[in-house]
């Protein structure tokens, strides 16, 4: 797992349960806005159908350059937005190999399962699977 993502997972696991959701909200509030080229071209983004909220993502894979990941997530869906922000903070700027090495169940170590329903956790795994699919496709392109 990439160090940046690993640190986030540890941060969640080390946070007392009663503050863990607030940490997720802090991530949600910190999701960076979309760059102008994606605001101008929303069709370039892919809907994450595994999410209960309208979440969209785009992944730029250019050989020899860090992978860039973009998420669009509404403010009124803070849980899904928080998951998108965790993946963004943990994986954006990584190498393709680092991103593909992310275990699909990495989120289990965040200890959110008491607080967030399994359906929502599946939104997170859906986002990760889609990011990895883009990266794998970009590498073989």
């Amino acid at each position, binding site marked *: 797992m990439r160090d940046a993502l690993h640190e986030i997972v540890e941060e969640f696991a080390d946070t007392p349960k009663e503050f863990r*959701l*607030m940490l*997720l*909200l802090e991530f*949600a509030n910190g999701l960076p806005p979309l760059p102008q080229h994606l605001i101008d071209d929303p069709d370039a983004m892919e809907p994450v*159908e*595994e*999410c*209960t*909220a*309208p979440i969209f993502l785009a992944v730029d894979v250019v050989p020899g350059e860090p992978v860039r990941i973009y998420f669009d997530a509404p*403010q*009124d*869906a*803070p*849980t*899904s937005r*928080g998951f998108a922000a965790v993946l963004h903070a943990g994986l954006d700027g990584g190498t393709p190999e680092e991103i593909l090495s992310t275990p699909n169940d990495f989120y289990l170590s965040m200890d959110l399962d*008491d*607080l*967030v*329903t399994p*359906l*929502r956790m*599946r*939104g997170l795994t*859906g986002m990760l699977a889609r990011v990895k699919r883009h990266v794998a496709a970009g590498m073989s392109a």
Partner: protein
Amino acid sequence: MPVEFDADPKIQAYAHPERLVTTEWLEARLGTPGLVVAESDEDVLLYNTGHIPGAVKIDWHTDLNDPLTRDYVDAEAFAALMSAKGITPDTTIVFYGDQSNWWAAYALWVTSLFGHADVRLLDGGRKKWIDEGRPVTTEVAVPAATQYPVTPRNDSVIRAYREQVLAHIGNGPLIDVRSPGEYSGELLHMPEYPQEGALRGGHIPTASSVPWRRAANEADGTFLPFDQLKAIYQDEIGLTPDDDVVAYCRIGERSSHTWFALTHLLGFTNVRNYDGSWVEWGNTVRVPIEKP
């Protein structure tokens, strides 16, 4: 002493006008002694992004469901929850939430299983309140704890179990409140949601399809007026107010919305919510399923 009822003419036309309040009514009464406003959302973080001033959060998943068994909390846990939220048996609780009040209606229904007397819904829920520019705060309410008595949960009146639903087929109306695609078996979950949760698609034999959404105004999520609700459920579907009705959806939240409309707005006397719903039925071995 219950907080006075909403005199709004639309609300007064319902069978039980004491169960619904308008946003105007609530804003004018925030802070009234004996009134607790409770937010219940699908999104577990939404309350923390801003809520009605003074409102407490009641989470359908972590507060109302037992952490181990797929069931509601027991009487002790419910009493502890109510005590922590500053609620006494005399408190007027006004529930509101996201998603057109699904989870608010669900929380109201679960609270009713424990016999709490004065429970009301905010017509239009969270979205209407925010769209109207009414006050919100991120300050988490810290109510003074109470000693809510341990009151047994009574599932026999408004809750239906799988075995009862099986026996109900052919003996009384069943209302499937899911989307048309879920009813027909094309979808296993709401449109645009992950298609997981049940191994089989379709509906319970004899169930009529009346999507929950039909009870609400598209624009602001408020309930339709009495006459329009009556036209749907009584004139079109043919239900009568003393019918033994069972409503279901996927996990019981959308059918809580319909349960509320039938019971409190139309005045039906014998409506039960089958909270096991499709996630139980569509995974159960050897129960009958109908597909068109």
